[in-house]
């Protein structure tokens, strides 16, 4: 097991035997254009300073010039691995503001899509972080299985990554006639594949030694930093928005919130692996019971929100995603703020990576599941 060298924890000034290393902005293990300014002594990390802004696209400002249906399509581009959850958050926010009740069918479809998206996201996280830790084979297996979900998306909504499937008032198309069949086929298949993931990596002794006990985030710190999602739950912080503030079809179903205890990298890994099983359970509860009905309610051609402030949160694959809209009654919002889970999660990194080796920093980042446009939007 890697050793935590507490005696090296230091103060702020750079000492003679310390040096600075830039990890990123172009580095494979940062999963995007994130720059970590790291202060090292030998291999030991003394300080990590995340620098963001390299992929800032000004989405929040851009939305002020767009109408509400147009905003939805931009949210795809923030956390592109949770595109549907982001879409849904904006749609729910607009629907709540207008007090539109969407048909039951829409709720079911959205929830199934949420969980499929979560599966797809966790698969990509699994394979990419496997690759970070040196298991290249994992990368191919993860992408192979993710492909099935992307095909389901493509069949129903025509896009694979930037779905733009939710629209205010419902979903863009009705589900494809094959949808239920292909989802069930996927689940049957993936239930057999998931144990393979465990055999390949989770049970592997090298992998366990690199993650167990590394980068412990205590529950108190998780709450203090506002860490949400699987990362927070691994520290024992019960923060699942699907449980605590249920939306769409989540009130109708039974599922467990997977909580960890240790808060180390391995626990973050385990929680996500367990969540994949749970997502499949959720989909199975819903897929046969999609009620008949419309797939969207008719909205006005120009959607105008009443004056006021509206907030809606959803559980994206990385944690709590929130949309805060300030409206002055016009067809464009006055101000939009997105609360992205990655931002809060990333900034714990200095706190928990201090004193670990640089290879452990990679393990910590891998299990944090960072998506940079989500942090930087």
């Amino acid at each position: 097991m890697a050793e935590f060298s507490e005696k090296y924890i230091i103060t702020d000034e750079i000492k003679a035997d310390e040096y600075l290393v830039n990890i990123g902005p172009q580095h494979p293990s940062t999963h995007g254009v994130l720059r970590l300014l790291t202060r090292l002594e030998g291999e030991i990390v003394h300080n990590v300073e995340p620098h963001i802004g390299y992929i800032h696209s000004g989405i929040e400002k851009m939305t002020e010039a767009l109408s509400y249906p147009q905003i939805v399509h931009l949210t795809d581009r923030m956390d592109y691995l949770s595109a549907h959850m982001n879409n849904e958050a904006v749609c729910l926010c607009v629907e709540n503001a207008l007090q539109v009740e969407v048909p039951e069918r829409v709720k079911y479809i959205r929830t199934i899509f949420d969980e499929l998206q979560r599966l797809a996201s966790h698969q990509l996280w699994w394979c990419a972080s496997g690759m970070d830790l040196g298991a290249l084979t994992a990368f191919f297996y993860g992408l192979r299985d993710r492909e099935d979900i992307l095909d389901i998306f493509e069949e129903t909504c025509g896009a694979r990554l930037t779905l733009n499937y939710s629209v205010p008032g419902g979903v863009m198309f009705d589900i494809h006639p094959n949808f239920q069949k292909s989802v069930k086929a996927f689940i049957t298949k993936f239930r057999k594949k998931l144990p393979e993931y465990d055999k390949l990596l989770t049970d592997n002794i090298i992998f366990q030694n690199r993650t167990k006990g590394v980068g412990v985030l205590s529950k108190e710190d998780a709450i203090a930093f506002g860490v949400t999602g699987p990362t927070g739950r691994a520290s024992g912080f019960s923060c699942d928005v699907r449980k605590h503030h249920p939306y769409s079809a989540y009130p109708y179903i039974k599922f467990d919130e997977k909580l960890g205890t240790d808060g180390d990298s391995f626990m973050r890994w385990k929680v996500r692996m367990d969540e994949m099983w749970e997502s499949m359970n959720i989909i199975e509860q819903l897929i046969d019971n999609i009620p008949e009905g419309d797939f969207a309610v008719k909205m006005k051609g120009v959607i105008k929100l009443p004056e006021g402030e509206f907030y809606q949160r959803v559980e994206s694959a990385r944690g709590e995603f929130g949309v805060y809209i300030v409206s002055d009654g016009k067809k464009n919002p006055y101000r939009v703020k997105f609360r992205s889970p990655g931002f809060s999660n990333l900034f714990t990194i200095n706190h928990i990576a201090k004193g670990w080796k640089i290879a452990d920093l990679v393990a910590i980042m891998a299990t944090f599941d960072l998506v940079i446009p989500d942090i930087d939007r």
Partner: protein
Amino acid sequence: MKSFFNYIAEIFSGVWTLLTGMKVTAKYFFTPWKNVTQQYPENRDTLVMYDRFRGEVIMPHNENNEHKCTGCGLCENACPNGSIEIISKSIVNEEGKKKRIIDQHIYHLGMCTFCNLCVRACPSDAIVMGQKFEHAHWDRSTFTKVLNQPGSKIMEGIKE
């Protein structure tokens, strides 16, 4: 002494977990027909995209070179990034009335995000999403397209 045995046991369990992992990879190595890679450029002729696939915006014309676009401009308004420009012209019809019709429906493929909002906005279903996805080209100017074909007319019976 105990730690020595632990050390040995750890080595054996380590090797064992490695072998378990390798069993999985070996399974796929020896059953290559189960692998799922599409031979993409080679299978072009047989490759069928899903019918809802959003590849580009197209305007279908019938055999008489007629389309359904009235030039109302709703798609232009719905587009989040200005990929559509509607240029209309006025003509005098048979009854001597002035009328605005579409002159050019300009579509900038290079800016389009394939969000489908324009197709949803169109009241007469004049534009749809096409299946073509191989858009790469040497020349950027080819990305600006005029969707209504030269000399095309509006179909009979489309409400304006």
